[in-house]
C-alpha cells in the first residue's frame, strides 16, 4: 500500500522515466558512440578488437578520397540548363531567407536551422546535377535521395489519386481497407524476393508479355535506371496503400456541408479540391509524408535482395553501403556512412516538419 502511494506521488516521474531512459540508452548512447566509431579505425586483435582514433579520415575518404565515387558519385559536367536551375535554386533560397528575416519574427535558432537546411539542400541539388550528367555517375547518397524524393512523391501521387477517386460512399469499403493493409504486413525481405520473382524476364509471370513486346532480350537489372525503378516499384507496392488509407480517412473528415454548398453553387471538382479538400487534408498529408520520409531514408532490403546494389553501384542505398562496409569489418567507414545518412535525414525531416508540416497546421488554426 505504501509503495503504491509513493508511486502515485512520484507518478510524473514513474510514468515517463522508463521511456526516457530506454530512449537515452538506445539513442543518445549509440549516437555518441557511433560518432566516436566514425572517427576511428576498428581492427581485430588477439582476444578481441582494437579501436584507434584517426580523426576525420573516414569522412575524408568518403568525401574526397578513394570512396568518393561510392558515396558522392563520379562527377560529370554541368550544362547551361543545370547552371540555370542552380541559380534559380540559390535565388529562391535567398528570397525565402530574406522574407523570413524581414518578417520580424526571426530567432537565432530558426535562422541557424534555415541556413543549414538551405545550404544542405543547395549542396545536394548541386551534387545531384553534377553526378547525373553524362560522364558522371551517382553514388549511394544521390541514389538514396532518388529513392526518397522520387519514391515518396510517386507513392503520394498514387495514394492521393486513388483516395480522391474513391472518397465516395461505396459499399464494401472496409473490404478494400483490409486488403490494402496487407502489403504493410509483409516483411520487406519477403517483398524483395517476391518482386525478384515477379520481375524475372524469363521465369516471372509476365514473361509472355515481355516476349510479346520483343523485350525478352532486355534486362532491367543491367540498366541503372530500370533497376532503380524496379526497387521503387517494390517500395511503392508496400507503402502506397498506407498513404492511400490515411489520405482517404482525411478526405472523409473534410467538411461535408462546405463541399455540398460549393457543389450547389456550381463549383467545379477542381475548385472544390483546391479550396476545400486540400486545405482540410493538408496537415494529415504533411504528417503522413513526414512518416514516409523518415522510413524511406532507411531503405536496404529491396536493393540488397533485388540486385545486391548492382549494376555497378547503381542501386546501392546509404544503409546498404554502410552494411557492406560493416560486412568487411570496416566499422569506421560503416559508422561514417551511417552518420552522413543520419545528418541528411535529420536535416530533411526537421526542415520538413518546421517549414511544411507546421505551416499546414497554422492554416488550420
Amino acid at each position, binding site marked *: 500500500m505504501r509503495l503504491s502511494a509513493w508511486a502515485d506521488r512520484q507518478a510524473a516521474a514513474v510514468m515517463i522515466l522508463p521511456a526516457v531512459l530506454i530512449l537515452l540508452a538506445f539513442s543518445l548512447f549509440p549516437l555518441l558512440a557511433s560518432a566516436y566509431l566514425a572517427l576511428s579505425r576498428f581492427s581485430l586483435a588477439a582476444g578481441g578488437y582494437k579501436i584507434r582514433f584517426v580523426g576525420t579520415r573516414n569522412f575524408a575518404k568518403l568525401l574526397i578520397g578513394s570512396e568518393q565515387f561510392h558515396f558522392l558519385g*563520379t562527377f560529370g559536367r554541368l550544362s547551361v540548363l543545370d547552371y540555370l536551375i542552380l541559380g534559380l535554386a540559390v535565388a529562391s533560397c535567398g528570397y525565402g531567407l530574406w522574407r523570413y528575416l524581414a518578417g520580424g519574427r526571426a530567432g537565432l535558432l530558426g535562422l541557424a536551422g534555415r541556413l543549414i537546411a538551405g545550404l544542405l539542400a543547395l549542396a545536394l541539388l548541386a551534387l545531384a546535377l553534377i553526378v547525373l550528367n553524362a560522364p558522371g*555517375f551517382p553514388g549511394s547518397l544521390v541514389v538514396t535521395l532518388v529513392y526518397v524524393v522520387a519514391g515518396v512523391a510517386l507513392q503520394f501521387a498514387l495514394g492521393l489519386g486513388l483516395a480522391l477517386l474513391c472518397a465516395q460512399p461505396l459499399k464494401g469499403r472496409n473490404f478494400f481497407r483490409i486488403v490494402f493493409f496487407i502489403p504493410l504486413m509483409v516483411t520487406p525481405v519477403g517483398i524483395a524476393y517476391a518482386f525478384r520473382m515477379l520481375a524475372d524476364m524469363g521465369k516471372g509471370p509476365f514473361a509472355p508479355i515481355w516476349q510479346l513486346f520483343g523485350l525478352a532480350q*532486355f534486362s*532491367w*537489372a*543491367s540498366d541503372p535506371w530500370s533497376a532503380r525503378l524496379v526497387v521503387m516499384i517494390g517500395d511503392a507496392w508496400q507503402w502506397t496503400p498506407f498513404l492511400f488509407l490515411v489520405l482517404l480517412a482525411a478526405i472523409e473528415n473534410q467538411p461535408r456541408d462546405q463541399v455540398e454548398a460549393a457543389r450547389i453553387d456550381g463549383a467545379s471538382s477542381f475548385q472544390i479540391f483546391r479550396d476545400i479538400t486540400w486545405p482540410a487534408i493538408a496537415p494529415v498529408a504533411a504528417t503522413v509524408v513526414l512518416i514516409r520520409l523518415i522510413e524511406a531514408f532507411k531503405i536496404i532490403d529491396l536493393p540488397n535482395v533485388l540486385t*545486391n546494389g548492382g549494376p555497378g553501384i547503381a542501386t546501392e542505398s546509404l544503409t546498404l553501403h554502410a552494411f557492406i562496409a*560493416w*560486412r568487411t569489418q570496416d566499422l569506421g567507414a560503416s559508422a561514417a556512412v551511417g552518420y552522413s545518412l543520419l545528418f541528411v535525414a535529420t536535416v530533411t525531416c526537421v526542415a520538413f516538419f518546421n517549414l511544411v508540416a507546421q505551416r499546414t497546421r497554422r492554416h488550420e488554426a
Partner: protein
Amino acid sequence: MKLRAWLSGTAMVAMASLLTSVGQAKDFDGVTVNVMTFTGPQIAEPLQRRGPDFEALTGAKINVITVPFSDLYTKLLTDWASGTNSIDAAVFAPQWMVDYVGPGYLEDLTDWAAADTALQADDIAPFFREFSQTYNGRTYLLTLDGDFQMVYYRTDLFAEAGLTAPATWDDYLNAAKTLHGKDMNGDGQGDYGSCIAKKRNAQSYWMITSVAGGFIQAKGTSEGVFFDSASMAPLVNNEAFGAALDVYTATTQYGPPDEINLDVGDTRSLFTTGRCALTLDWGDIGTLAIDPENSKVIDKVGSVMLPGSKKVLDRASGKLVDCDANTCPHAIDGVNRAPFAAFGGWSGGINKAADAKVKQAAYAFFSYMSQPAQSNVDVTIGKTGFNPYRISQFDKIDQWTKAGMSEAAAKDYLGAIKASLDSPNMVLDLRIPKNQAYQQVVLDTAIARLLAGEIDKTAAMQAIEAGWNELNEDEGVDEQLGFYKATLGQK
C-alpha cells in the same frame, strides 16, 4: 534416397567402433553442437541430413544454423571476436582461416587428426591435406569439399560445330561466339554462348581471377597471382590483367541479357536446363548435370581445366610476352594454363572457446562427415555441393556411374579435376588478413562497375590497384607481404 540414407545409417553403426579414438558411442549424450554454415541445400543439406544419424550414433545433437553466404565470414568473426560464442563450429572457406587463426579463435586439430584413424587422412588429396587444412604447419580445418574452377561445355554442340574443348581463352570466346544464339534445348528459342556468374557481391571476383590466372602466373604455384612477392605491388594494373578483363567483358556479349545480375545459382540452373554452351564454375556442375529431376543435359557435358594464354605477364615491364621454355616452363602446347583453387573447398573448423565436450563432439562430427563411407556418397550427389577431394573418389569410377554418370563422363569430369589438382601451376586463393576487403569489396566493386559501364578498363585497373595499395598500407605492407609469402610457401 531414403533407402540409401538408411543403409549408410546402418553402416555407421558398424563404423561407430572406429570413432573410439575420439569418443565412445553415445559418449555425447546431451551435448548440442551449433554448427554454422551458409544456407542450403548445398553444404547445409548433408550436414542436416546426416546430423540425426550422427546423433543416433553418438548422442550429440547437431544444430545447423544457416546465414546467407555473404554474411557468413562476418557472422563467425563477430561471434567469436565478441566472445558471444554462440557458434561452436562452422563449415566455411579455408581462405578466411587466416583471420580466425591469427587472433586464436580456432582449435588446433593437428593432434586429433593424427590420432583419428577413421578419418583416413592419407586418402585426402595432398593439396587439401597440406595446404587447405593447415596454417603455419598446423591443421585447423577438416576438408569436406574439394573446390576448383573449371570450364564446362556442351559436348553435343561442340561436336556438331566441329569445335574442341577450349585450351585458350581465345578458343573459349570463339566457341561462345560460334554457338551463341543457337537453340540448345529444343524449345525453339535462341540460347547463350557463355554463362558466367557476374553478379555483384556474389562470386564474380573468383571468376575474373580464374580468367586472369593463365595470363599472370606461369612459373608455378609459388609465384602467386595477386601481388608481386618482392614488393607487395598489386598485379592488377598491367597488360596481362587488362587482357583478362577484355576476355571477361567480351564473354558478356555471348551471355544472357541479365548476366550481370546472375550468381552461380542462376548460371547453374541455366546451364543444366540446357540454355548455355559454356560456363565457368566449380565442380558442382558435374554432379548437377546428372540429376535426372532437374537436368536436361545429362551426358552432354564435358569438363576441362581452365583455359590459358599463349602470352604471359613479364613482371618487370608489366607487358605481355610470348610463351617460351623460359617464360612458361609449365606450358602445354605453348599454352600457359593456371587452374584456380578458388575458395579452397568448404571445411569444418571448431571454436576454441567452446566446451571441451562440445569441441570433441564437433570434431567427431566433421570426421564422420569426411570419412569415405559418408563422403564418397555425398560427393556424387549434386545438391550436397560437395566435390571430390579424396584420392579414392577419383579412382572409384563405380561410385559415379552408380550415381547416374556415364563412364565416359565420369572419366572426363574426374580427369579434369585431377589434372587441375596435379598442375604445378595451380593458382592459390588469397589468404592474407582482410582478404575479404581486397576481393569482396575492392576487386568486386571495380569489376561490377566495369561491367555496368560506369568506368572503363583503365579506370577499373587503377581503382583495384589504388584500393589494394590502400589496404596494404592500412594493414602494414611488410606484414601483409609476410603473410602473402607464407601462403605461397616462399621464405
